[in-house]
């Protein structure tokens, strides 16, 4: 889910939104505040999704819009500056400590793998729905095709009078909404943090190796999660497990890149 929003922004504007983890954290905190106020999980999810979606739309309009003609590196740096601001604001408002939101009893005990919680199942099914909906959005909807067109060539998109503002607004709303959903689920399942920068790194890695395919992104994301879980079980030091998992994904990605280059060379004589 977190990778989906990251991928969408990369596909549309061609930059890596380093602040994505902070948007997820923001979504998590909005969820926490809403849950404290309403005590209803579904309503809190909805509030979090809507708030973060509109927040990201506003950020795009105010901060990224003047930089649309700049290269991706400029936008990456801007998003890094934004991540520092958002993280510090969250810490100032809510303090820097991690919070546990409490977890219901597990719904299932898998032999050898451990307990399965409701949030795990929800995350998995939501991710599957997101991939299917995302594929439909990008391949068959006008806005989705417009987002791809903007990503491929912004000038041509302007010349062909695509509704750039509307497309980008929707794209960033979806990115913010999915980040909020991911952040809220992570907060429910584990802890609510002031920044999910580690997840930004994961999203960065899987987006880079997945190329333009949402299905491959989904598979790599699942694969990364599975490898991290297995590595954490085998190697009792969490960071080593995560590092090994990232290395595995990168190695697979480089293999696929080499394969694509060989195929491209065979077809066109150029890499």
């Amino acid at each position, binding site marked *: 889910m977190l990778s989906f929003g990251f991928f969408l922004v990369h596909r549309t504007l061609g930059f890596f939104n*380093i602040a994505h983890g902070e948007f997820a954290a923001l979504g998590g905190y909005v969820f926490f505040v809403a849950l404290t106020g309403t005590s209803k999980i579904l309503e809190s999810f909805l509030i979090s999704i809507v708030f973060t979606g509109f927040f990201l739309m506003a950020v795009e309009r105010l*901060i990224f819009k*003047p*930089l649309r003609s*700049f*290269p991706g*590196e*400029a936008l990456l*740096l*801007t998003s*890094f*500056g*934004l*991540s*520092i*601001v958002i*993280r*510090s*604001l969250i*810490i*100032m408002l809510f303090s820097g400590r991690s919070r546990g939101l409490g977890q219901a009893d597990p719904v299932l005990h898998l032999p050898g793998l451990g307990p399965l919680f409701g949030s795990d199942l929800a995350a998995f099914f939501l991710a599957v729905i997101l991939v299917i909906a995302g594929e439909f959005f990008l391949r068959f909807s006008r806005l989705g095709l417009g987002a791809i067109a903007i990503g491929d060539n912004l000038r041509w998109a302007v010349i062909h009078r695509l509704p750039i503002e509307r497309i980008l607004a929707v794209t960033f709303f979806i990115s913010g909404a999915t980040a909020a959903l991911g952040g809220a689920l992570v907060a429910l399942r584990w802890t609510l943090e002031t920044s999910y*920068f580690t997840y930004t*790194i994961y999203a*960065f*890695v899987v987006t*880079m*190796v997945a190329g333009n395919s949402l299905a491959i992104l989904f598979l790599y994301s699942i694969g990364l999660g599975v490898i991290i879980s297995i590595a954490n079980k085998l190697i009792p*030091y969490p*960071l*080593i497990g*995560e*590092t090994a998992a*990232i*290395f595995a994904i*990168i190695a697979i*990605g*480089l293999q696929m*890149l080499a394969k694509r280059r060989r195929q491209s060379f065979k077809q066109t004589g150029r890499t």
Partner: protein
Amino acid sequence: MDILVAVISKFLVFFMLLTALNLLVGKLNLWAFGYIGFFGLGSFLSVYLHRYWGIDAWTSLFIALFGGLLIALAFGRISIKLGEKPFLVLNLFWTQAVYSLIVFYGGPRGIFGFKRPDGFMGILQSPAGFLMAILLPAVLVLSLSVYLYARAPLHRWAYFVRSFPREAEIYGYKVDSLRTALFVVGAFWSILSGILYAWFIGGTDPSVATPYWGLLIFALVLVGGVDSLSGSVVAAVLLTVLPMVIAKLFAFSPKASFYGAHISQILFGILVIAMVRFFPQGIAGRRVTWSKEGY
């Protein structure tokens, strides 16, 4: 006086690291987020070898330096050859790997208890002596190297490779080799600055060797100014002196100190956003980072 020495020492250490990164970004436009990994590796190796293997400080310095250089050579060669995007990904991975290594062996707080050697008639034992005898000469050598490099033929070759890589290859320039060579030179200074940082604080500091710090250092280079020694000075001031000044301003209560620290972060974030929009060449830079042109 001790505080002044500490601030100047920290400034010089990070000036070295920032200049190393500025060298690579400025001359070849290589976004080496992983240099903080070499910084962390240098500090970890020198402290670990001294504390746990009983090797004396100077020997562990040289082992850390040359071991790190060999790793930098292999890593630089492979990652540069693979292309721009794999280079970025591998740099981030490298930083994560080094951070994991440091925490695995030393815990989240790092390894402490490192004693500077007794050489130089015991001068190095005092922070001021360490600053004058080691840090300052190292920074002067680095600054002189950068100054001379800017007037050497290698500088023109690097400009050609940065601006016209395909044409450079056609003309017979070994583009990847030149990039790797500069990568290794920058890595040398990063590793050395990491070692000297460990000598300065008496141990390792894992919090500085994270991917986040890799991006922070990079952003600082851009805000300070690319392809310019004065840019590195500005960046080092922003990293070391400015947070201290703001902390002093807000030191009247613990709550104020807490907010002061985060206000300085927010100001820095806003500065990065503003610099990209209005001053893309940075405060003291010679060219725009993402422009291949400029000399």
